[in-house]
């Protein structure tokens, strides 16, 4: 399952960041999104726009393509 499969308001744990491009991964880690963290899907923008997730009480927005390469369970 990947991050985009989450329904709005549901929580999952990140377990795989290896498929994410290096620069994006670095930014996500900086912001506190890395393996073992719980993420909550907040909302998705229309027409394939970015998603907004919450990690540790912090909201982060990233593109759907990148979110789709983040493995969660």
């Amino acid at each position, binding site marked *: 399952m990947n991050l985009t499969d989450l329904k709005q308001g549901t929580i999952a744990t990140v377990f795989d960041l290896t498929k994410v491009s290096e620069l994006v991964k*670095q930014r996500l880690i900086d912001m506190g999104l890395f393996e073992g963290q719980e993420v909550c899907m907040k909302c998705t923008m229309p027409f394939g726009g970015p998603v*907004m997730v919450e990690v540790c009480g912090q909201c982060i927005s990233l*593109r759907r393509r990148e979110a789709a390469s983040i493995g969660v369970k």
Partner: protein
Amino acid sequence: MSQFALFGNPNTGKTSLFNNLTGSYEYVGNWSGVTVEKKVGKLRHHNGQLIDLPGVYSLNPLSKDEEVVTEFLLTDEFEKILNIVDASQLKRNLQLTIQLLEFGKPLLIGLNMIDVAKTRGMSIDEKKLSEMLGVSIVPIIARSGKGCDVLSKELTINTNKEIKPSKLKIDYGFLEDAIERIIKLLPDHISMNKRWMAIQFLEGNKRVEGYIYSLKIDETSLEQIKKDVEGNLVNRGVKSSIRQYIYNVRDQKISSILKEVTDVASLKKQNATELIDRIVTNRFLGIPIFLLFMYVMFMLTFDWLGSPLADLLDGFLSGPVTDILQSVLTAIGASSFIKALILEGIVAGVGGVLVFVPQIFIMFFLISFLEDSGYMARVAMVMDRVMESIGLNGKSFIPMIIGFGCNVPGIMAARTIEQPKERLLTILLTPLMSCSARLPVYALFVGAFFLKHQALVVLSLYVLGIVVALVVARIFSSLFFKGESSLFVIELPPYRIPQALTLWRSTWEKGKGFIRKAGTFIFGGSVLIWLMAYAGPHGMNVEMDDSFLAMVGGLLAPVLSPLGFGTWQAGASLLTGFLAKEVVVATMNIIYHVPDTTSLQGILSNHYNALSAFSFMAFVLLYVPCLATVATIRKETGSTKWTYFSIIYSLLVAYLIAIVIYQIGGLFL
């Protein structure tokens, strides 16, 4: 004087703290080599200077402004580190703190937002945290200024005495061996902490790497150490990079510290932020709400609040001020030349522009409000899909909005964009945003030709700027930057009501430049233009049509005639408008020799009609970025080629659009 440096994550209240600790700016300049703003403030009640640094997550830079921080550590002298830490985001914030502790300079923590942490049900034992980290911690609420006095006092005592660096030392396990090997390779004469350098090198910090290589150390043996470590990671079955491994080691340490010092009662939600987000980032309402905000912002600046104020100022400048100057000049017996120069040149030119100070300040105020409230990041998210389709990302939208105030800070704001391609493209597009300096030109023409639909016509120009920017971006990204990947990750800070002090300061910082411009560029330009209009090939005090100004402007007139304004007056004012776009109005005031805006508008109706006026405004909007903007583009891109490119393409676009408006519009009207 002692210098202290302020470090912290983005969105931790760094600016609030800086404003609370410092009374006035010692100076605001640029960091050497880059146009990232360097702000140095004088501490209130204490002796010392505080240096504001861009917010960073770690010392390992990904974007241009983050580089400044690492550069600062490597090259600048300072006494102590002041690290602002967001108590509600401790885990993440301490990553930076640990790197700063490893740097080895005396460090003081300002633990901010203890109130926010508390409302989220988290209590922190500051004493224990302070013991475990081995540094002093002062709890503060930067927004209200609570605890800032104590922090300031703590910061300035013991500056001369040697303070022991923190005893906290993180054990990086099997990396320690590699760290030791690197330290041995580093020469003895460097004053910086070698362990810090070694760790940063292993983490892949490019700036530190460059610094180490500049010390003439055998690069191959350094690279070999790194390769050994990477091999070791694989052998141990660790899938991550060295950087991530180091991050994880730190994270474990931080978690173990936090377990002892924090007590989480119940994780309460941030209700207000969540509620607002549910509306403004709603799937369908997001973009309409943003447009509504822009509309309100625009109406406030232009219509509801700005115009009446500008009219008042206009009346004051053309009435009492001119009268007083006139009687003073008569009283001291000034010659008619001086009298004409001051009244018809300077007062008409500079005054004609100063009139717009209220509108420009309102615009800057509203932009500062958007910046500080946390809404900007949402705008970036909402607009990302649109921006992606033209080869940019949502973050590019922020420089563009700031560009509505002034293109110069807009272009500078592009430095937060990580991808060089997207950054360059954003820099090239930002000058198309209708900055406040163009407002005087619109105000003048709209008042003369579009009395009934003032706001609507001006709004259409703003929209025109955006649409042209989007189209141009699409063309450029498919022409020059084919196949380069785009990136978008952004943090969405909780909403905050901006603080009065911070708002005022950032409004003033931005607006000041405009007033300064009136005293320099516009003043000088007005004198020059007046002289050129006063003198001609056949002597002084000639008829305006025989002046040098008319000659120069006349050269351009035939080129401009298909656009609907082929007069020497238009040519001359556009030419001088390159200095600063407001000068277009200053020049017109002088050329048409009128005391105030109203009579100028009357005269203009003899030279323009509604269509050519609109075509002229569109041309002013798009043609060449002003001098200051060109200089900023040069600095930020570091390329003469792209600087010329930005001038030439905008001229072409302006000409094309204006000709389309005038010729096609002419068919219907």
